[in-house]
C-alpha cells in the first residue's frame, strides 16, 4: 500500500475544504434535495461533522482496510446521521445517495491531484470507492435498524393499548378486542382479563369481538381458551359483538360455540349480565 498511496490520506486531509465545498455544491445542486426535512445549514453541519471525523481517522495504513477498528468513530457518526434521517422521514434512497455523493466529491479532488499519474489514480479511486461503499452499507444497516426500532415501539404500544379491561358495573368487566387475535395477543388478553378478575373480584366478563376483522378456527380456539380460563377462575364469560359474517364463518368452519354464552351486541350481553346478577334497570318516573 505504502508505495501506491503513501499520501492519499494526507492529501485528502489537506484538501478538506475543497472536498466539503464540492460535496455541498453537489448536494445543493441535486434535484432530490429535501429542504423541507433538513435546512441547508443543518445539512452543512452534518456533512462537515462526517467529513471531519472521517479525515481525522483516516491514515495511509487503514485507508485500504474498511474493517479497521479506526473507523469506529466514523461508523458512530454515520449511524447517528442515518437514524436521525430515518426519523425525519428521509427515504433510504436519499440517505444512500447522500453518502455516495461524498464519493463523487472525494474522487473529483483525487482526480485533480493525481491527474499526472494514472496508475496511482486508479488505485486511489478503487480504494476510495471501496471505503465509501462500505460506509454506504453501514448506513443502510443502521437506517433499517432505525426503522425497525420505530416499528417495534409501535407494535409494543399497540399491544399495550389495545387490550384495556373496562369495569362496566360492579362485578361486570368488559374487554373489547380490536384487531386480529393471534396467539401472543390472546396470551396478553387472557392474562390482563384474569388479573383484572382477581383484582376486582368480578364474576362476569364480557368479551366484545366487534373489532375483530375475521374469525378463523385458530381465533375461535383462542376465544374458547379465554372463556375456559375465565370459567376456571370462577367467573362467567360472555362473548358479544358477533357480526353476521362471523356467525356464518363460525358455522361453516364447524366450530362449536354451543357451551359459550354468545350475544350479538355489547348491550344485550350487558342486559344478560344484569339478569345473572339479578339487577334491574328501570326508567325513573319523574313526579310532577
Amino acid at each position, binding site marked *: 500500500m505504502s508505495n501506491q498511496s503513501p499520501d492519499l490520506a494526507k492529501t485528502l486531509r489537506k484538501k478538506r475544504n475543497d472536498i466539503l465545498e464540492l460535496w455541498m455544491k453537489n448536494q445543493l445542486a441535486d434535484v432530490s434535495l429535501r429542504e423541507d426535512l433538513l435546512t441547508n445549514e443543518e445539512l452543512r453541519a452534518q456533512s462537515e461533522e462526517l467529513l471531519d471525523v472521517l479525515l481525522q481517522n483516516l491514515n495511509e495504513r487503514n485507508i485500504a482496510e474498511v474493517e479497521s477498528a479506526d473507523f469506529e468513530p466514523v461508523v458512530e457518526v454515520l449511524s447517528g446521521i442515518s437514524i436521525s434521517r430515518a426519523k425525519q422521514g428521509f427515504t433510504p434512497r436519499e440517505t444512500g445517495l447522500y453518502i455516495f455523493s461524498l464519493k463523487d466529491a472525494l474522487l473529483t479532488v483525487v482526480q485533480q491531484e493525481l491527474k499526472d499519474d494514472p496508475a496511482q489514480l486508479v488505485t486511489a479511486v478503487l480504494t476510495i470507492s471501496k471505503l465509501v461503499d462500505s460506509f454506504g452499507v453501514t448506513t443502510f444497516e443502521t437506517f433499517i435498524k432505525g426503522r425497525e426500532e420505530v416499528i417495534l415501539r409501535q407494535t409494543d404500544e399497540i399491544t399495550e393499548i389495545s387490550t384495556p379491561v373496562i369495569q362496566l358495573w360492579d362485578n361486570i368487566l368488559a374487554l373489547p378486542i380490536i384487531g386480529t387475535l393471534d396467539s401472543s395477543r390472546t396470551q396478553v388478553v387472557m392474562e390482563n382479563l384474569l388479573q383484572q378478575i382477581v383484582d376486582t373480584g368480578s364474576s362476569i366478563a364480557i368479551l366484545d369481538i366487534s373489532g375483530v376483522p375475521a374469525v378463523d378456527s385458530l381465533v375461535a380456539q383462542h376465544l374458547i381458551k379465554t372463556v375456559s380460563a375465565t*370459567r376456571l377462575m370462577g367467573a362467567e364469560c360472555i362473548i358479544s359483538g358477533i357480526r353476521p359474517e362471523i356467525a356464518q364463518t363460525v358455522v361453516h368452519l364447524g366450530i362449536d360455540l354451543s357451551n359459550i354464552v354468545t350475544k350479538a351486541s355489547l348491550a344485550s350481553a350487558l342486559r344478560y349480565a344484569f339478569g*345473572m346478577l339479578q339487577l334491574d334497570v328501570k326508567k325513573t318516573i319523574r313526579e310532577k
Partner: protein
Amino acid sequence: MDKIPILRMGHFLLVTIQTDLYDRLAMSLEADLVQMVSKTNAKGVLIDISAQSIVDSFMGRIIGNIASMCKILDAETVVVGMQPAVAITLIELGLELKGVHTALNVEKGMELLQTKIILPTEDTSDDDDYSA
C-alpha cells in the same frame, strides 16, 4: 409426611392447600378427602388453591378426579381462588376441569355451594339461583 387438614363446616368440607402440592401429597389428599366425605356424609367440598402458583397436568387430573369421586358420593366440589397463571396453564394443558365448579374466593364458593345443595334439615333461607 405433611398432611393437608380437612375441616368440617356443617355439611361442607373445607380444604385449604397452603403448601406446594407434590404428587404423593395430592394422592393422599384424594384418599383422605374421599374417606372424609363418606364418613361425614358431606354434601359439598370446597378446595381453596389460592396459594398454589404452579400446577401440572397431574395436579389438574387429581382435582378432576376428586370432583368426580365426590360426585359419586353425592357431594359437589367447588375449587376457589385459582390464580390466573394456573388457569392459563390448565387451559394450555387441555384440562378444562369439567364437572368442577369454580368461584373467585372462599366467600363466593360458599354461596355457590349453598345454592347448589338443598340441605336436608335446615331451610336454605335465600333461594336465589343466580349461578344456576
